[in-house]
């Protein structure tokens, strides 16, 4: 196990390098640059823009730019944003916590709801199963954007039970209840898609688990149906779901873009969209590398958990 861990950790390095090169090339391949938005400004002369681009090092050849960036990154200097003229670390720090809160909350809600729904989907009467199946199909198809707006319209504008957006009531001091009240709307909307997907996945895994021989043995031993399903079948069916969860790691950074926009949630998703439009390379490179690290770490965690949970798997 230990050698496996070491090998996996070492393998992360070339992966990250390859990812960074790919992202770098893709970003710079998009036409236009960080100075594009100023071209329409009556106070700006094209000479000014060329001067600015040169000062940001954008006229150097790509390999030079990349190596400069890499060197800075490795020494902890994540660069200065073109748009905000602030160190990138500060910008990310402001937004990251907000997104992490939101995504974690949605993952918690999704897990808590998806598991019972998945179990029900596999074990109740066929009619109910079909109803649950259709509902989850609906859940998978609903676009987050639309759902977010509808939730806002019904619960915030008409019923006035939810706030109209943001993380906290403006001007008020920190209060946990206030924060949770603001978190409910976006977290539920974000969770809906996952609940639908995961419950379907869990249902099929559960059905497959229930066809196994050990289930018959358990029933033969005289265990109640509830114990058979929840204690034996479910534990085995849950394992692949945990892998899925691990793969959600990358989403902790950029996965809630649309929901954040609709609910005015000050998170990373919006930052990414704005930075893409503005071609703010330092912010973009740092954000995407962070996502890559989280995806890789999540993958590793998922693999390890699977190995721990399923004794049949041996990692070496």
């Amino acid at each position, binding site marked *: 196990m230990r050698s496996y861990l070491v090998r996996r950790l070492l393998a992360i390095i070339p992966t990250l390098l390859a990812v960074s090169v790919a992202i770098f090339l893709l970003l710079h391949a998009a*036409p236009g640059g960080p100075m*594009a938005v100023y071209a329409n400004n009556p106070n700006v*002369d094209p000479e000014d823009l060329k001067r600015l681009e040169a000062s940001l090092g954008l006229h150097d050849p790509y390999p030079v730019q990349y190596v400069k960036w890499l060197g800075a990154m490795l020494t902890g200097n994540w660069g200065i944003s073109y748009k905000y003229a602030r160190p990138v670390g500060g910008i990310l720090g402001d937004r990251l916590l907000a997104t992490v809160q939101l995504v974690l909350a949605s993952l918690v809600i999704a897990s808590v709801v998806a598991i019972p729904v998945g179990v029900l989907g596999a074990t109740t009467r066929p009619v109910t199963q079909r109803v649950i199946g259709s509902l989850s199909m609906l859940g998978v198809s609903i676009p987050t954007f639309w759902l977010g707006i509808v939730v806002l319209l019904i619960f*915030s*504008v008409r019923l006035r039970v939810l706030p109209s957006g943001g993380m*906290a009531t403006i001007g008020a001091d920190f209060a946990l209840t206030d924060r949770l009240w603001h978190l409910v709307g976006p977290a539920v909307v974000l969770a809906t898609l996952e609940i639908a997907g995961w419950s379907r996945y869990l249902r099929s895994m559960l059905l497959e688990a229930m066809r196994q021989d050990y289930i018959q043995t358990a029933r033969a031993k005289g265990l109640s149906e509830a114990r058979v399903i929840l204690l034996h079948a479910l534990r085995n069916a849950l394992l692949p779901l945990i892998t899925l969860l691990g793969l959600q790691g990358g989403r902790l950074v950029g996965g809630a873009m649309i929901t954040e926009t*609709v609910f005015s949630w*000050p998170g990373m998703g919006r930052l990414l969209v*704005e930075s893409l439009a503005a071609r703010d390379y330092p912010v973009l490179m740092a954000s995407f590398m962070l996502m890559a690290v989280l995806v890789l770490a999540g993958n590793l965690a998922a693999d390890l958990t699977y190995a721990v949970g399923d004794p049949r798997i041996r990692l070496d």
Partner: protein
Amino acid sequence: MAEPCDLTAVEARRLIGARGLSPVELVESCIGRIEQWNPHVNAVVTTCYDRARAEARAAEAAVMRGEALPPLHGLPVGIKDLDETEGVRTTYGSLLFRDHAPDRDSLMVAAIRRAGGIVLGKTNTPEFGAGGNTNNAWWATPPSPAPCRASSRPSPAARAGELMRTGSGLSFQSAMETGRGGAGGWPPGRRCSRLDAVDTRTDSPHQSMEADMTHHRLAFTGSGLAILLAALALGGLATAVAAQTPRAGGQLVHGSVQEPDRIWGPVTGLTVSTEISQLVNASLIEINDRLEYQPSLATQVPTLENGGISKDGLRYTFTLRKGVKWHDGQPFTSADVAFTHTVILNPDVDVRGRVGWNKISRVETPDDHTVVFQFSAVDAPFLDRVAALGILPKHVLGTLSGAEIKTHKWFRAPVGTGPFVFKEWVPGSHLVLVKNPGYWKPGQPYLDRIIYKIVPDANALLNQLETGDVDTRLRLVNEHIDVVKKLPNVTLVSTPSIVPWLIWVNHTVPPFNDKKVRQALAHGFDKARLAATILGGHVTPAWQLLPPVSWAYSPTIVRHAYDPGKARALLDETGWKLGGDGVRVRDGKRLSVEIANIAGEQERVQVLSFIQQQWKQIGVEARIRAVDVGSMWGAMLPKRQYEMAYSYSGRLPDPDMSTHYLSPELKPSTNFAGYSNAEVDRLLLAANATVDRATRKAGYQKAQEIVADDVVYLFLYWLNNNTVLNKRVQGYKPAPGYTEFWNADEWWVTK
């Protein structure tokens, strides 16, 4: 079926201004309705149709010439027969004045005419205004036993009467006559007076007056006098209520879809950043809602007349206000202004635009309250630039290097001299600005706090306007206008902006280097219809770069109006013949053009689809290509790698148009069209070399005539700036060429 006479006055006027309705049509429609119903309701007693028709024709001509139109331009008005109308019989409802035609209008009627109203005729009145109905010896016959047909919804009669209401202080009478406030129905059982005794179809001949009419009018009945006095009192009360005094205190929440980046104009490209900068960082002068300069930190706007600008335009002197303090208590002096100038030119600070500032050879500060800018070459729009520049505090940034200034946190937490003090910025969420207690205008700002809330989704922002979570919103998208109009707690203020939307044409790419082809394309689509239909009348069609409010606007340039026949003829002339598939061909090449469009807004696609359809009729194929902002402005336009591109063009209030028309070889130039004309260059350079408005205006107008004929760009429209205000917000005045917070120190809230 809806007729022009069924429109509300506001709607009709708007359509007239947008060229969606002709005053002639409107007048004819009203005349038709009057003729249809007046025999039954007897509302109109004298008409002056011929004169009205002539005025309507003149009004129509004024619209087509693109003149600035007064508020009631082209609207038909009925004048109550108690008010004198020049040359039109005015009887005051009395037999005594049966042939009386005044030789001048009353003040109110004169004002209505001046505002563009077209008088259609005189409406019925009780004798000398005494009484609550229109029964008088003139127009009433003994009561008819047959009552009028009553209806619960507004009858056409009531509407005819409604059309004929006047703005006199005695209008509450006409309200009684035409059914309680105009929109109500005709009360059942009401007696109708029948019009039979008098011919209303001809204008009465002019007759000279012998005596002062008001003298006679009041002398005759006591009740007439009483009613007149009551009306005057009501009128007085109304004006008092209208001019409320500002109330100090309260908070305003402003909603924006964009978040600011750095709160100082020269280092940002975002309007929202300059807006907040306007609230916190004052500038030497300001621009008001009439596009005039106003003093701010300077006590006087420098002009040629007052000597603030030297005769050769190379020396500007500003006298600074005494006693102004920065938000941290330090005194504001001329050293701060000189320092700001050095920051702009500092190569290590990433100021985006130095246009104009780099013509200043030195800044002199003879004392703490005088600043002199000495130029090496004339920068004609300099005052516009000064109005847009917030002054930096030397005591905060003065000792730092350029690189340190660039990343300094002042740009995220500014200390300024403006009406509001920066308090807090929660990234992604909101900014808080509080009242500056030491602001140099006494008693202002009225507001205690402004919260600048960031709501990135336009629909969510609309929701918040509806619930009152947000009080104000600028630049409302056109799709939401109809929704906002129905909300009870907000008002919508629409002003034409000075920013034109246009289609750039790349003159370096054939066939667009051919003037006739460009003219054909201009003739090939119907701009007025585009404005009225797809854009819902929320725009003003544009035929040139400068908007009508600009002092150098040219109403007389040639306009290539919609004329598909002419377009086809021009294309035939240039050798583009219709091919088999309906698209013109020449030398084996098809006349197919690609129009780049910034993706994201449905309305833009609709506009281009409209043009695409119409160009199809003249044999031109247009392909619409969606690109993003970075591609269009970073690559396609600056490098001229496009055929046509549709977007807006950022403009200063100053009419300087070198960025659009000066040849690419001359600097500075963002002439993305690649247009080059030596005569235009000469005119523009001469106009920019002086600060004398008359000379500049002459030069710009001549240049505009040439470029209009050359069809350098296909101008489309000026979008309206749509501002949504909660009804509690007072004091807002739109500023088409400037940020909308220019007078935020005068805003106040009612509760």
